């Protein structure tokens, strides 16, 4: 089983904080580019799109933690909360830029878009669904909600699927970049369906491999 050099436990907390800082760098960078004229001739749209794409990337990273542990034996579960929250912050920024810089706080237009345009309806629903997840992302909620927490946080699969759909519907044609994002989300959601058999098979293999190895050892011995 592959394994990375383990990060000493005393650095765990710092590494999570570092992730928040690194994770929000793309937003800060694009904001800086926007201010300095580096986002081309339609800077607001570009900023808005980049924030949305980065939200999807962090959702993909969040969904990737479990298969990474299952299949590669790398346990980064300590980063999952930060990744999920960063994704939420990007979705929030994406929506805020759309409301403020793009539509200039024309709430009538915002409401009209949400009501009439399916991809915006879906995107907005995903933002709403992310709120309870963000609110219950603290240790207290995890303890308090117990099994309910797990059930509630399964919403992330619906949110990820909704985010992918929002992206597909927003582009004029699905080209390579959207396809990669959507395919990764589909793959990571699909993995959940086959996770149990995959894990059983892995455990089964492990069991059958061990006696075989010990048998060989005995034969050699």
């Amino acid at each position, binding site marked *: 089983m592959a394994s990375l050099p383990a990060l000493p436990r005393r650095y765990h907390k710092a590494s999570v904080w570092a992730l928040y800082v690194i994770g929000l760098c793309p937003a800060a960078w694009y904001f800086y580019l926007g201010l300095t004229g580096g986002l081309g001739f339609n*800077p607001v*749209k570009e900023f808005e799109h980049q924030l949305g794409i980065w939200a999807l990337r962090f959702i993909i990273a969040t969904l990737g933690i479990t298969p990474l542990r299952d299949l590669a034996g790398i346990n980064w579960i300590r980063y999952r909360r930060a990744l999920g929250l960063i994704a939420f912050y990007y979705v929030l920024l994406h929506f805020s830029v759309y409301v403020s*810089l793009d539509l200039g706080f024309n709430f009538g237009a915002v409401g009209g878009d949400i009501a009439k345009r399916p991809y915006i309806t879906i995107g907005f629903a995903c933002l709403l669904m992310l709120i309870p997840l963000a609110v219950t992302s603290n240790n207290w909620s995890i303890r308090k909600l117990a099994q309910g927490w797990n059930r509630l946080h399964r919403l992330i699969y619906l949110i990820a699927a909704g985010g992918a759909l929002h992206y597909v519907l927003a582009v004029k044609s*699905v080209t*390579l970049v959207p396809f990669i994002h959507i395919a990764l989300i589909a793959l990571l959601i699909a993995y959940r369906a086959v996770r149990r058999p995959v894990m059983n098979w892995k455990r089964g293999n492990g069991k059958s491999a061990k006696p075989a190895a010990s048998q060989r050892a005995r034969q050699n011995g």
Partner: protein
Amino acid sequence: MPAYRLPHIPASEITPRDIYMSRRNFMGAAAAAGLAFAGADSAFAAPLTANPSPYKLDEKLTPKEAVTTYNNFYEFGVNKDDPAANSGDFKPTPWSVKVDGMVGKPKDFGLDELMKMNLEERTYRMRCVEGWSMVIPWIGFPLSAILDQVEPLGSAKYVSFETVVRPEEMPGQKGFFQPLPWPYIEGLRLDEARHPLAILAVGLYGETLPNPNGAPIRLVVPWKYGFKSIKSIVRISLVEKQPETTWKNANAREYGFYSNVNPAVDHPRWSQATEQRIGEGGFFGANRRPTLPFNGYADQVASLYDGLDLKANY
């Protein structure tokens, strides 16, 4: 065919002579400066002179850099900066445009001949279906000028257009995930094609057409969404039936044959009521402006559609 009245240009839309003359001086100087590093930016763009025309606007021109680097030209890639980045290998010369179909005198027009047409500078609004717009000083000639030469037959009712296919020079046309089938095709009703506002453009901003803008020759129909104004044309055919068009084939629910700019008919996925003028109102002052029926050319073209339900024929 019905007779056409000349477009009615309100006096307020005509730029005073001293202003446009001073602009021409400026452009002359800019063109001279451009010569100094010709070939450095947009390939093959060279100074091009044209007669002034009454088609002017009292609106600020979109900066040339925006006009030539913010483009939808999927043959070079789907991102706005792809055409400028990926069109360096495209060779707009030599070139010819085959005009055929239901015509008395089919003809191949060489580029030299097209460049010798009576070229005019015409400043038009350009409204993209995506909700942004520009104001562009084109150089071109009325499409009707070449239609007249080939003598359309009475049975010809539509005009179809076709873009060049050159995967070796147009990276968007090769590889996986090509966004559209090629060639890109477009079409107009014959009376639309003959409307004096419809031009074939061979230049902009006092230069030959840069590659990202559809070199060496493209259609400009300013009252329709930008995708109707097909680029890098190699064939124009007169036909009896409404021709297929690329975006309608890709998604007929969203893109119709007419695609007249119409703030009252939303695209199914976004509103068409307002537009962002590219290059204006930076990061914080995104000032969307109302979109005008027929992109502001209703006085000239609305009569083409008398009796036509514009909601059904979007």
